[in-house]
């Protein structure tokens, strides 16, 4: 008797300019199987469901446990992490496509460097470099740690940007992930030194004002980061910063 199988349809594209084609694959079912393990298996034995040999599929992945943020893709139409998408919970054939808002590299791999550029634009770091030992940092109260911890969970998967109706090439919106990191670093007693610069950065074109509060980001976030709360808080901070700048200049 034939073993139980799982069927996949994968959107293939050999290069950014090549035409997109769908290929079907059928692999043996295993208990607890997730989409990323299926991708690995298909890449290792690239034979389509009708027995044709094809090129190995390309995709990003690393940790396989929803910590690194690499394997975000659209699975049955929705952006999510391939590692935490269990095959048993998905309708078959499982349709796997690359994220749609980022430049395609090949197959399921996209270039998400815009997020890294955005994090640089808002100085999402804590400046501790000096010419001498700066000593121990200030104490972070437990309450502050508790408020910051959810924000520090961001894995840069860009799902929040993918599902955002405002994140596109017309608005060039910065996206929820970057705004959450602004809050994280503004709340840190040492990171706070760059607070005003970060807020001013977020008032630039493509900044926080482009948010339409459709709230898709918070729905989709695999790490359950309170993104809408953060956008609300940081919107207020940006507005107050702009008002202060206007009145004090």
């Amino acid at each position, binding site marked *: 008797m034939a073993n139980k199988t799982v069927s996949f349809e994968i959107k293939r594209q050999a290069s*950014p300019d090549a035409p997109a084609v769908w290929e079907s694959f059928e692999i043996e079912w295993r208990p607890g199987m997730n989409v990323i393990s299926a991708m690995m298996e298909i890449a290792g034995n690239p034979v389509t469901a009708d027995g044709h040999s094809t090129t190995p599929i390309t995709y990003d992945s690393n940790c396989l446990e929803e910590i690194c943020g690499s394997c975000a893709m659209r699975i049955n*139409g*929705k952006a999510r992490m391939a590692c935490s998408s269990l095959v048993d919970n998905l309708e078959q054939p499982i349709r796997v496509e690359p994220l749609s*808002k*980022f*430049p395609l*590299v090949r197959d399921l791999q996209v*270039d998400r*460097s*815009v997020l890294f*550029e*955005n994090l*640089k*634009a*808002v100085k999402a770091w804590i400046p501790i470099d000096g010419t001498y030992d700066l000593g121990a940092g200030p104490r972070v109260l437990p309450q502050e740690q508790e408020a910051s911890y959810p924000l520090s969970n961001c894995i840069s998967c860009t799902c929040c*940007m993918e*599902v955002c*109706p*405002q*994140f*596109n*090439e*017309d*608005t*060039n*919106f*910065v996206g929820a992930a*970057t705004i959450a990191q602004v809050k994280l670093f503004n709340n840190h007693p040492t990171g706070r030194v760059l607070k005003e610069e970060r807020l*001013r*950065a*977020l*008032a*630039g*074109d*493509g*900044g*926080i*004002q*482009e*948010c*339409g*509060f*459709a*709230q*898709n980001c918070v*729905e*989709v976030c695999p790490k359950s980061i*309170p993104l*809408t*709360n953060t*956008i*609300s*808080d*940081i*919107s*207020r*901070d*940006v*507005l107050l910063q*702009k008002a202060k700048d206007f009145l004090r200049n």
Partner: protein
Amino acid sequence: MATAQSPAATPQRPIVRSGVKPLRAGEGSSFLWHKLHSLLGIIPLGAFLLEHMLSNFEALKGPIAYGEQVRFLNSLPMVRVLEWVFIFLPILYHACYGVWIWLRGKSNIVYYPWAGNWLYVAQRYTGLIAFAYILQHVIRQRFMGVSLPEHPMEAFAKVQQELANPWMLAVYVIAMIAICWHFSYGVWLFAAKWGITPGTRARKRFGYVCVALGLGLAIMGLWSIWAFVGNSASSF
């Protein structure tokens, strides 16, 4: 040529530079224009909407009370300046910039049919209905036919005549609901986006307040419309 291969010594993967651009940190003035759009929706437009709804409610007391209300509004100091600065120009800006915001958003309700996403789409359609309605409403009721600033007592008859057309009545009913929806969700959005309700529970509670506000206004508005069509026999 027939044996063309991919170049063996491509130095490195080409850097992809298409797609959504990174944040232009601190550049441009779109922040100001967005916030102006948002603020104008509450003050003066929201405030004017409340005034208009209350004035319409006078119609329930009959043509004379309604006419007196129109006369009072037209007797305000510098009323023509007030009209342009606090009503016409803000509406025009709010509407045009709103359409611009709409055109730049890319709705994905098909893939993500979630409540907030629906409301995001609804805010755009109700806004468009409101704009189209208000344009014809202002042209036909303010700038065409009997000049109400000069003949305020004919206000009731003018509206009654307009609503005698069943198609126009349908337009008014639909627009009334769309505008109340757009305003009440707009208030909710304003509170969320200006950092007044940063908490999930606060937004939820304020959501109930806004639903009550929207329902209250819509009922008031529809009731006022009823005053012009329901008892037309007894009005004169």
